[in-house]
């Protein structure tokens, strides 16, 4: 095989595999991504001009390690206490396609950091920005909103629900209401 065609093949292969770089990175020492600077909307109804733009990607949405760290934090911060592994209980389900306060990364960041009415605590003085972004990535992966390759597999616990990497992709619906599908 000639050197030229070999190097061409290598370049092509490298281009195909470039997405692997981002997914597999372990951002251990990189600086913490900051809180979103855009003002994010909290609901569908907004007085005045529309605030939200959902074009900003969560920094760990396509990163397997960051999403897995989010999975660990979800357990350690006892999110299951209200959200029960994603199925909901006292808190809304996170695995479904209904979002009260929006499914965009910075909307979820805001939800976790600021807290929300009816019981969602504010975490911004308890978790740093990096950790909240990791949780954002994990929460989004629960309903299939992040790339499949970076979603975590099952945990070594009782299987209460399919792992995020088995979850079909879901198109989010911003309903603005808790239990919107159960409203009459």
């Amino acid at each position, binding site marked *: 095989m000639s050197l030229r065609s070999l190097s061409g093949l290598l370049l092509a292969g490298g281009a195909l595999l470039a997405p692997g770089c981002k997914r597999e990175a*372990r951002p*251990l*020492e990189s600086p*913490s991504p900051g809180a979103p600077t855009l003002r994010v909307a909290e609901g569908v109804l907004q007085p005045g001009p529309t605030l939200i733009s959902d074009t900003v990607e969560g920094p760990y949405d396509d990163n397997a390690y960051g999403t897995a760290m989010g999975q*660990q934090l979800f357990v*350690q*911060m006892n999110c299951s206490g209200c959200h029960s592994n994603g199925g909901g209980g006292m808190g809304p389900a996170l695995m479904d396609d209904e979002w009260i306060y929006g499914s965009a990364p910075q909307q979820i960041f805001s939800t976790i950091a600021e807290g929300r009415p009816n019981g969602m605590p504010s975490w911004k*003085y*308890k*978790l*740093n920005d*990096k*950790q909240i972004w990791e949780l954002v990535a994990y929460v989004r992966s629960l309903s299939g909103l992040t790339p499949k390759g970076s979603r975590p597999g099952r945990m*070594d616990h009782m299987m209460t629900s399919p792992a995020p990497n088995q979850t079909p992709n879901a198109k989010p619906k911003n309903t603005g209401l808790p239990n919107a599908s159960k409203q009459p």
Partner: protein
Amino acid sequence: MHSFFHPTSPQAHVVTTLWWWMFGVGGAVWLIVVIAMLYAARARRGERGDDGLLHVSESTHHAMERTVIGAGVVTVVILLAFLAYDFSVGEALAQHPDRALTIELTGHQWWWEATYENPDPSKRITTANEIHVPVGRPVQIKLRSADVIHSFWVPNLNGKRDLIPGYVSSQWFTADTAGMYRGQCAEFCGLQHAKMALYIIAEPAAKFDAWLAASATTAPLPTDSATRFGEQVFLTASCAVCHSIAGTPAMATVGPNLTHIASRRTIAAGTLANNRANLTGWIVDPQAFKPGTLMPKSTLQPAELQALIAYLETLK
């Protein structure tokens, strides 16, 4: 400190003795083989035949047979002898005395959680990375894992035992000499496997009882404004989300228990000596010392950090 060659328990002694026998006999066997090889290499034996090969006499051939069979027999005898010795060592190690002090050790990525059980719940002690044991009393360490497989290994005291999720395993030892014995996790467990050490401090029974009593107490109340502020920082910032200090509302079990942090000789699972500079550096950016550790970088202001350190230093 952590050398197999300095056994300080009967269990470790019996194995180290076995080692010296194996080393002596094994070394002798190797030497004999090498000498035999050099002797054979310098051989000038055999008559050249018409086929260009060398031929030896019947008696030389018989000598060769006897050598091979003899060497084989000697090998079998030596191996069987060591087999018997191995079994007797195994027998000795399998003795599990009754009066043992039981310590529950749970392996986490990348630190050791230790619990001293007591029928009186107020005397239960939970600590991390540094265990005290009394000299002369059998100790049973019950081993569990919270996440992946780790391995408990303190060479001076006994061999290693794996901590496997889903299993409870046990390791026994009796420290016969007071001292500080270092151990390190001995099963690859991820990014910071290299920095997951623990210390076992064997001390005379009286000192151990004093330590046990002191560890069962709750944290002292802060006395001056700096330490009061520091306690507030601990409880309201992100510390209390993962750590617990007995006697305060902080009761989380995600990270090590810090009730008596100031009396530990090291922090971060044996990675750093426990002094003000290291403690500050560790809190500000744990990733600088143990990249990949689960403790996040702090977001504290300098004044808050100073007060927090002052408070933590009171937790003896």
